[in-house]
């Protein structure tokens, strides 16, 4: 037991006022659910718009100290094509170790040119942010400077109605912002940074806001009829149905981007040229296929299979493990993800899940479980 005090986000008082059930998460006192409850919060986000407080995540500038494109230095730590990002474009990537294991996953943006061409904007996971930022600062010393953006909060507005709400409140141009694109809006003197991305499989935005304006922004959003406050509980079930990885569960230092099914996030140039940690391992897996793969698993019955559930073959031999599992409210039944040997990774392969000593039938399925609602021009 730690007696350490939990950190709070600038929206803490609002969460309490809204009647949220608060739980410790990554060192922060965070809302797991509001009075609506996880099930309804989840379904509301798939039909309307949900507002999430993700201010616990780490935001930072990476600033070039050499005058070179900061993307060149950052590419030595991640397998994404960062140099290829145009100003105002964002990309998903992973910090890798020398074995190709994943230290964390992140979003990197080459900001709009008005921010300056000397920098990248980074968003990393709450639980990893201190390690990530010191890892980057140490590895790229003399080339990139890390400037944590501790005076900014981060909100996510997610769901099929998010674009209508954003356009109504902040300007029509937000409805035409491309997927993974950035926009900067002056809202009553507050400098808002929008990116059209999220962690629910729905259309929507992540909005970086000065900490002292975060609560008024959240109140304005919540006053819109389509918007409900959504807690971390529904955030987890939404991302699970969307087939998105949760760091420390579905991906960690023992998994590579190839095993995790994240090959799409490795830049084409980088697959051949390398220049990132673990390239040998990743290149070999790209050429020969990884020995195991992250897959979707759909249990046939109603019993959820939680993280750590053994995956069995027809003979009862253990072939893998569930890394995320629970109930998918949109599907109305249990859903899971986990790793299996490549011979079992094909869509439709029957497996069994060992839940409390019973072998329950399940099938390997393609991810995501629900079709994505991302904005496409």
């Amino acid at each position, binding site marked *: 037991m730690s007696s350490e005090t939990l950190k709070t986000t600038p929206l803490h008082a609002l969460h309490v006022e809204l009647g949220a059930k608060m739980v410790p998460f990554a060192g922060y006192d965070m809302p*797991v*659910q509001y009075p609506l*409850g*996880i*099930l*309804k919060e*989840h379904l509301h986000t798939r039909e309307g718009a949900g507002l999430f407080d993700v201010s616990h995540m780490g935001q930072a500038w990476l600033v070039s100290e050499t005058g070179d494109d900061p993307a060149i230095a950052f590419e030595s730590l991640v397998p994404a094509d960062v140099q290829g990002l145009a100003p105002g474009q964002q990309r998903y990537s992973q910090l890798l170790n020398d074995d190709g294991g994943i230290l964390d996953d992140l979003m990197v943006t080459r900001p709009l040119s008005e921010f300056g061409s000397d920098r990248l904007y980074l968003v990393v996971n709450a639980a990893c942010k201190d390690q990530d930022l010191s890892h980057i600062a140490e590895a790229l010393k003399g080339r990139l400077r890390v400037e944590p953006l501790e005076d900014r909060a981060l909100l996510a507005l997610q769901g099929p109605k998010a674009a209508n709400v954003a356009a109504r409140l902040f300007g029509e141009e937000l409805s035409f912002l491309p997927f993974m694109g950035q926009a900067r809006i002056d809202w009553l003197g507050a400098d808002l940074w929008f990116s059209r991305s999220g962690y629910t499989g729905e259309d929507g935005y992540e909005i970086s806001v000065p900490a002292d304006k975060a609560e008024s922004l959240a109140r304005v959003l919540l006053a819109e009829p389509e918007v409900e406050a959504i807690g971390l*509980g*529904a955030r*987890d*079930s939404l991302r699970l149905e969307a087939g998105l990885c949760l760091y420390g569960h579905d991906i960690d230092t023992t998994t590579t981007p190839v095993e995790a099914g994240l090959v799409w996030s490795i830049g084409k140039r980088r697959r051949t040229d390398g220049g990132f940690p673990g390239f040998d391992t990743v290149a070999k897996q790209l050429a020969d296929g990884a020995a195991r793969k992250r897959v979707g698993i759909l249990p046939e019955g*109603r*019993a*959820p299979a*939680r993280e750590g559930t053994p995956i069995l073959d027809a003979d009862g031999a253990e072939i893998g493990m569930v890394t995320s599992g*629970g*109930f998918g*409210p949109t599907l109305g039944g*249990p859903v899971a993800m986990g790793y299996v040997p490549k011979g079992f990774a094909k869509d439709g392969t029957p497996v069994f899940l060992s839940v*409390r000593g019973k072998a329950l039938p399940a099938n390997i399925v393609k991810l995501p479980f629900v079709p994505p609602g991302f904005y496409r021009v």
Partner: protein
Amino acid sequence: MADRKFSEEHEWIEVDGDVATVGITDHAQEQLGDIVFVDLPEVGTELNKDDEAGVVESVKAASEVYAPIGGEIVEVNDTLTDNPALVNEDAEGDGWFFKIKIADPGELDDLMSEAEYKDFIAD
């Protein structure tokens, strides 16, 4: 109304002759949140007091349900298999879990009264 007793594991038990009906308390369902799955014991199972009798799962997590007294399971509430949300709607009524044939009525003495349970959850 028959006598109702409560366990520290948040089960309620109502005795009717030599058979007792068991469920989880309204406080427990509220703590769990939206219930999406209930695993019930099989009829005929012999359980000792405090044995695991079943599992109740919310969107977020799984929790065990224990037998507040020992005995033989004589009936289970099959409705919960298809409608686990009934536990949220009426935990201490239609959302009951199972009926157990009481092996030793003396074990009932270890359980709390309603007033004692209210104090217990207030702490």
